[in-house]
């Protein structure tokens, strides 16, 4: 604009004189939307003429505006982009809403609304679901701010005289249900916005500037629903009992559901939740489902024309009732289940719960995963009543059991900077703050959707790697402060390094999860399987060695008769029980890691053998090489200090094992599956307490059974393959990789003969 010449100003002034504002039909509206000091002047002619002076392809644009931004613009008059466009012959006048007379139709609308609501929970936008209901639109279009205003504005109708049952059906029963449902949506939206989730990926929180009855309290709506239930119950409502029951169940469910969605953490800690009530009412809704008559005409995409939306129009999504019913039932059950974390029973148990709960298929809904984050940590309080530092230190103690002196409560009381206690306390405080943040982030990350979990873990391990180095330094300082006695370990004199040991263990687990999730999310191609299992086996072996070291250093505590014991406060001395617990935890973790390592080793040999026999083929890679792909896979681990990434050439030799004969390789794989199976069997025999699965025993055992199935499945594949090699029938063998019937981390190749029908998958192992 700076280079506009003065001559241009003149021209503009002249033009202004010649182009008087045109009086047209729009004049009545000119001042409506704009400040009164502004007006509009018709420049159509001027503009078009000026445009014709431009060259083809020449653009006149704001220098700050990029064409990249323009890609996101909505194209007006394009039916795919313009939600305001009328179809040919379509009228703009809002059509009258069909007003049902029969209670069956009201039941039908309520169930359709539930389907819409659950479609929203399942990831569709409000504009595709709840908002497409003309009754919801009617109720919200006047932007009610008080309960009295939250009502339908329908034209009078002969069949709906005020006071008549048909009138009450809509204005009492359906109204209460709709108001309740909108408020439920508001509560859900608030919860999801309060925690970290992925907009448009997990959930769409967009409300298009429509207020979801924000100013009306749940208590008021409660009363409204109660009075609707009373009406249905009364003699004034002339319907058969089963209809009354169906209407009442739907209203009552709405009431209870809203109550549950409105609870804060404090109430949940006090165990006032009543999801069971919701579940009971849902079963009544399911039974009376057939009484409803669907009324599709009260849902319309035309509502999108009114919504303030910067995205193109989207089709209506309304999942079938059965599906919606499954989603809402699961939501209630899951929301009830996550309350278990409030009965805290140790940090390792808590972690197991998070891992097992979020790994469930299908994954728990976004709402529940968001609520779990809130339960875990909100307003600087963990699990509604605890300090996060407490849980963190318990986690450290459960695995590594550092020296008692670090946890002596008297450390905190010391105010003398030169005092050892003071210095210990300073370092422990640092640890709680620094590691506490990483620890919280880890729990929150586990609550994300599976793809995001994998992606975010790649970032987290960088943080945990840095944390490990920082902790090593602190461990060094602490061992001097507590005058730790070195211990002989693997021919070296060494110290416990408890804090950094704990961090390293978690870091290794996260590195394993990244690759395991790669299998679960089907990131890897079959020809990469052997290599990726080799990496898992490498990480697991590193972790096993590390666990052995931890076991060696689990602090034996101070004998109570030693002179040192007298100088310590009683509560900080590790009891024999603590020592036994830590040792049991380490032993359990060792067994679990060993079992996984055996299975991974079996998979390396099995998939390498398949590749050698040409049964798993490398697809053509016109723009890639194995080395480039390897670099890509290792990218998350390249910056990690320990363990190292193996150079590609070494990696190839280690995976391919060119010196070992294929049959010999399969024998080794068979040994591995047997060992793995033995370990998993041992794990299955352990109690929930010693498996740290107190909060999720069922899910934990299911997971173990899936590991076992993969073990057995791999064993069968190995036998089939060996047989084919020995009988020289490899050419007749067909391989199909089964992602579905086994543990998602261990897809198993199904080996079959081309001539015979394929064998069925291994049946589920005993329940």
């Amino acid at each position: 604009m700076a280079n506009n010449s003065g001559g241009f100003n003149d021209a503009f002034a002249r033009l202004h004189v010649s182009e008087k504002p045109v009086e047209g039909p729009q004049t009545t509206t000119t001042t409506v939307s704009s400040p009164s000091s502004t007006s509009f002047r018709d420049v159509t002619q001027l503009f078009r003429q000026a445009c014709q002076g431009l060259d083809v392809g020449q653009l006149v644009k704001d220098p700050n505006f990029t064409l990249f931004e323009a890609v996101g613009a909505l194209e007006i008059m394009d039916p795919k982009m313009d939600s305001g466009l009328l179809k040919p012959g379509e009228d703009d006048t809002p059509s009258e809403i069909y007003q049902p007379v029969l209670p069956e139709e009201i039941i039908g609308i309520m169930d359709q609304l539930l389907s819409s609501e659950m479609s929203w929970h399942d990831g569709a936008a409000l504009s595709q679901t709840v908002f497409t209901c003309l009754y919801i639109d009617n109720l919200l279009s006047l932007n009610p701010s008080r309960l009295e205003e939250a009502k339908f504005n329908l034209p009078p109708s002969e069949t709906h005289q005020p006071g008549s049952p048909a009138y009450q059906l809509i204005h009492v029963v359906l109204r209460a249900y709709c108001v309740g449902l909108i408020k439920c949506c508001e509560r859900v939206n608030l919860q999801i916005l309060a925690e970290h989730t992925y907009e448009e990926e997990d959930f769409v929180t967009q409300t298009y500037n429509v207020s979801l009855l924000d100013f009306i309290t749940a208590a008021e709506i409660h009363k409204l629903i109660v009075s609707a239930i009373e009406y249905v119950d009364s003699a004034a409502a002339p319907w058969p009992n089963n209809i009354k029951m169906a209407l009442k169940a739907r209203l009552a469910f709405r009431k209870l559901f809203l109550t549950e969605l409105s609870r804060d953490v404090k109430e949940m800690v006090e165990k006032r939740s009543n999801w069971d009530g919701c579940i009971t009412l849902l079963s009544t809704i399911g039974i009376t489902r057939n009484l409803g008559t669907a009324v599709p005409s009260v849902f319309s995409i035309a509502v999108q024309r009114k919504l303030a939306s910067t995205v193109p129009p989207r089709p209506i999504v309304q999942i079938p009732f059965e599906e919606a019913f499954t989603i809402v039932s699961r939501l209630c059950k899951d929301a009830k289940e996550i309350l278990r974390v409030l009965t805290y029973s140790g940090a390792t148990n808590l972690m197991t719960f998070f891992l097992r709960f979020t790994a469930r298929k299908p994954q728990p809904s976004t709402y529940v995963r968001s609520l779990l984050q809130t339960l875990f940590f909100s307003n600087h309080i963990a699990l509604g009543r605890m300090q996060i530092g407490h849980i963190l230190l318990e986690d450290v103690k459960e695995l590594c059991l550092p020296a008692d002196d670090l946890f002596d409560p008297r450390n905190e009381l010391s105010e003398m900077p030169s005092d050892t206690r003071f210095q210990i306390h300073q370092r422990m405080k640092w640890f709680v703050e620094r590691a506490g943040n990483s620890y919280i982030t880890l729990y929150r990350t586990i609550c994300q959707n599976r793809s995001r979990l994998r992606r975010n873990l790649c970032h987290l391990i960088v943080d945990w790697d840095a944390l490990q180095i920082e902790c090593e330094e602190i461990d060094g300082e602490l061992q001097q402060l507590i005058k730790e006695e070195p211990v002989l370990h693997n021919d070296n004199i060494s110290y416990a390094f408890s804090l950094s040991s704990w961090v390293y263990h978690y870091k290794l687990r996260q590195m394993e999860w990244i690759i395991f999730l790669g299998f679960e999310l089907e990131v890897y191609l079959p020809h990469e399987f052997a290599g990726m299992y080799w990496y898992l086996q490498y990480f697991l072996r590193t972790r096993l060695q590390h666990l052995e070291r931890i076991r060696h250093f689990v602090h034996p505590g101070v004998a109570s008769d030693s002179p040192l014991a007298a100088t310590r406060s009683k509560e900080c001395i590790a009891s024999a029980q603590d020592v036994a617990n830590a040792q049991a935890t380490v032993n359990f973790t060792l067994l679990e890691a060993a079992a996984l390592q055996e299975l991974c080793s079996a998979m390396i040999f099995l998939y390498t053998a398949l590749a050698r026999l040409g049964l798993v083929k490398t697809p053509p890679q016109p723009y890639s090489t194995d080395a480039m792909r390897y670099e890509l896979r290792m990218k998350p681990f390249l910056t990690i200090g320990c363990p190292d990434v193996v150079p590609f050439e070494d990696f190839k030799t280690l995976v391919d094992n060119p010196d070992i004969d294929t049959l010999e390789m399969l024998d080794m794989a068979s040994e591995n599956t047997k060992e793995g199976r033995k370990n998993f069997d041992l794990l299955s025999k352990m109690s929930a307490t010693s498996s740290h699965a107190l909060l999720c025993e069922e899910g934990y055992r299911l997971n173990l059974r899936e590991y076992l199935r993969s073990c057995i499945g791999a064993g069968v594949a190995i036998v089939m393959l060996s047989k084919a090699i020995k009988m020289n029938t490899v050419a007749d063998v067909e391989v199909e990789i089964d992602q579905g019937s086994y543990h998602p981390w261990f897809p198993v190749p199904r080996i079959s003969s081309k001539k015979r029908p394929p064998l069925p998958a291994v049946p589920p192992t005993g329940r």
Partner: protein
Amino acid sequence: MESTGVLPDALLHSFITKTLRVTTNDTRMFVGELKCTDRDANLILARTHEYRLPKFKLEDAGRKVDLTSRYLGLVVVMGVDIRRIELEEFGGGGGSSVAVGGDGMEV
């Protein structure tokens, strides 16, 4: 555009970042900030609101009518679909006090 004595793109540049009210052939109006245009008078408008004329109660014409509006953000309007282009001006539209080079016009 020889008759006006200015280069066409200079004139068009003066419209950039100004608020325009564009009426499309289906009688909707779009009020937004001009970001970009070309030979066919295709327009890119930012921070755009859509206004729809009420089809009923035409007897109310002459009085102020409330238009239903909604926010759309960044839009493209094709030149062929445009019936009218209007420029927002301050000060009641009269007089010669049009701030050609001025910034800061708000929707």
